[in-house]
């Protein structure tokens, strides 16, 4: 990986502190590799079929190793479930990918060419990584539609925002997303007035508006009713193919609904990958039974 010519591009620091401009194209998720292709700066290069590489990532808090030489790859277009006991480092891994925590050692790449450890949170979000937090975090003082407007993929520098107008296409996108998350009738209500489940849906809507190439979901079903959880599973399954996803979850039923028979599931424990494979496969893994599922 280190000898790939595209790596040189990753070494050039971002051009401006305010993040990338609007020159980001949606990556092709087909993964077709063309020999001798031109590396476009800031575009996610998934020519090798992999959208996220983590290699020997280590993070220590004091003496505690939250991540211990974690290596993990996610394929373009994949929906990956990550399970593991509390303290396995799942949330820390998401913090590293999104730039909230910088790793002590290791490599974190989006596609072939974008070194995420060199970017800050807004820049990483601009390259196309969306993140859903455990607690629904919407802007409570803003109406529902403004929450979607804020999330919408656009030039997010201050002077662009100062001049921004909500054109017809943008209005259509907001309305369409409202329809998808079934909040049309709440469009003008303050997000703070929504119920817990509605806030969760709004946050999913905000992620859709971002048009991410990679979506990280940290326990998205937390605090949801069983019906809401299954509904979310259906929604995420429908998103398959439009973006790659990584879902951290405790709820095994939800994981089963997402991964199906063949989907890959990663089990983490003590800051590293314990096992990987289909849900059935990891359930039968001795080490997994030992540390997580219990005998």
């Amino acid at each position, binding site marked *: 990986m280190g000898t790939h010519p595209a790596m040189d591009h990753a070494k050039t620091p971002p051009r401006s502190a305010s993040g990338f401009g609007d020159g980001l194209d949606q990556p092709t998720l087909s993964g077709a590799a063309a020999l001798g292709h031109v590396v476009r700066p800031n575009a996610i290069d998934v020519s090798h079929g992999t959208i996220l590489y983590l290699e020997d990532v280590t993070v220590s808090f004091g003496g505690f190793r939250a991540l211990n030489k974690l290596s993990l790859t996610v394929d373009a277009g994949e929906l990956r479930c990550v399970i593991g006991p509390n303290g396995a480092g799942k949330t820390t891994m998401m913090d590293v990918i999104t730039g909230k925590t910088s790793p002590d050692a290791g490599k974190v790449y989006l596609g072939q060419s974008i070194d995420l450890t060199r970017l800050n949170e807004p820049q990483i979000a601009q390259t196309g990584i969306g993140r859903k937090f455990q607690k629904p975090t919407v802007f409570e003082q*803003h109406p529902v*539609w403004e929450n979607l407007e804020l999330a919408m993929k656009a030039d997010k520098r201050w002077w662009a925002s100062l001049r*921004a107008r909500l054109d017809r296409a943008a209005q*259509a996108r907001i309305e369409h997303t409202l329809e998808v998350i079934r909040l049309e009738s709440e469009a003008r209500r303050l997000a703070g007035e929504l119920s817990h489940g509605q806030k969760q849906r709004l946050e999913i809507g905000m992620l859709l508006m971002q048009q991410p190439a990679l979506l990280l979901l940290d326990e998205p079903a937390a605090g949801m009713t069983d019906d809401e959880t299954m509904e979310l599973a259906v929604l995420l399954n429908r*998103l398959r193919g439009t973006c790659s996803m990584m879902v951290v979850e405790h709820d095994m039923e939800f994981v089963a609904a997402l991964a199906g028979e063949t989907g890959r599931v990663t089990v983490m424990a003590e800051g590293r990958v314990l096992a990987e494979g289909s849900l059935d496969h990891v359930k039968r893994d001795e080490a997994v039974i030992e540390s997580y599922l219990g005998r």
Partner: protein
Amino acid sequence: MAVTISTMPGIPSAAGQDIGRTLGLPPRPALLSRNAWLALLALSIAVGIGVPVGALVVPETSAFHLSAYAMTLAGKFMCYAIGALALDLVWGYCGVLSLGHALFFALGGYAIGMYLMRSIGNEGVYGSDLPDFMVSLNWQALPWYWEGTQHLGYALLLVVLVPAAVAWIFGFFTFRSRVKGVYLSIITQALTFAAMLLFYRNETGFGGNNGFTDFKRIAGFTITHPGTRTALFLLTFATLVLAFIAARAIVTSKLGRVVTAVRDGETRLMFLGYNPLGYKLFVWTVSAILCGIAGALYVPQVGIINPGEMSPGNSIEMAIWVAVGGRGTLIGPIVGAFAVNGAKSFFTANFPEYWLFFLGLIFVLVPLLLPRGIMGLIGNVFKRSTH
């Protein structure tokens, strides 16, 4: 488990035929409602005609004469209102409580003060071309930073550029280091205190603790002449109106919505791809410029500027105006500046010993009883009467 997702939920296509208009989302919210524009227009006409007539045409013996005292007082209040509006932009909308806005106010005042000192010419006590305080310090020539201040245009440029530069540099380093909340407030307080100590020194070249005073004329007009006073008053009023409209333009733009999102959830906003630094710096710098302009209008009307204007207490009082009026609204700080300063004038004229007690009482009672200030109270009354 009814899933009612009608269409492919992925990324919606931008080419909608009929969609996009059903909710009637505004391309850009209106700057002001029609009624608000009419009210503003009516107020402008009333002030624009009433004040000159009351001050210049109506004879002094008449009860309808607008005295120089009343006009100066109202002019001062309007300057405070501009400052409060500026502070509300950063505090009420961006969540950055500055306890150092008196610094920007004073910097604007000092910038215009330099021009006013120079335009005294050799009519000072010592009859020198140098300002009086320099003569008493035995200085032979103007310090380099006084160059060009005899030109009003250059002084006005300084009024804008000096607060802007100080604010930008200060803001860049503090916001970039992600200093927030009470820590930021304390640093802004320290900044204005440090500046006050600097300006108290005679060697700084701004008149030491006496500051600048004894102004004679502005732009060639005698500064105490009723016509000049009226013009300054109207200029202040016009600036207040324009500042209000500019602030409306900022808070109704998408930038305004991002800025309130910075206030409510800065971390979340970063994961949406926004870098808060540019947004905070923009609002912070605009606020400092507005404050500087307010100070520049204040000094010719009250006739004095000294380092006392930078005292920490002044900055805190500005925050009280905003809190009393209602932060996060644009009318609120204007109402608050008039209400608190009106009360201050009343108390200091009638019961001077009780003013500080009253101020303390406001400080305690407003957050308890009126968490959203006077505007919040008015809003509640409106809601109740419409239900």
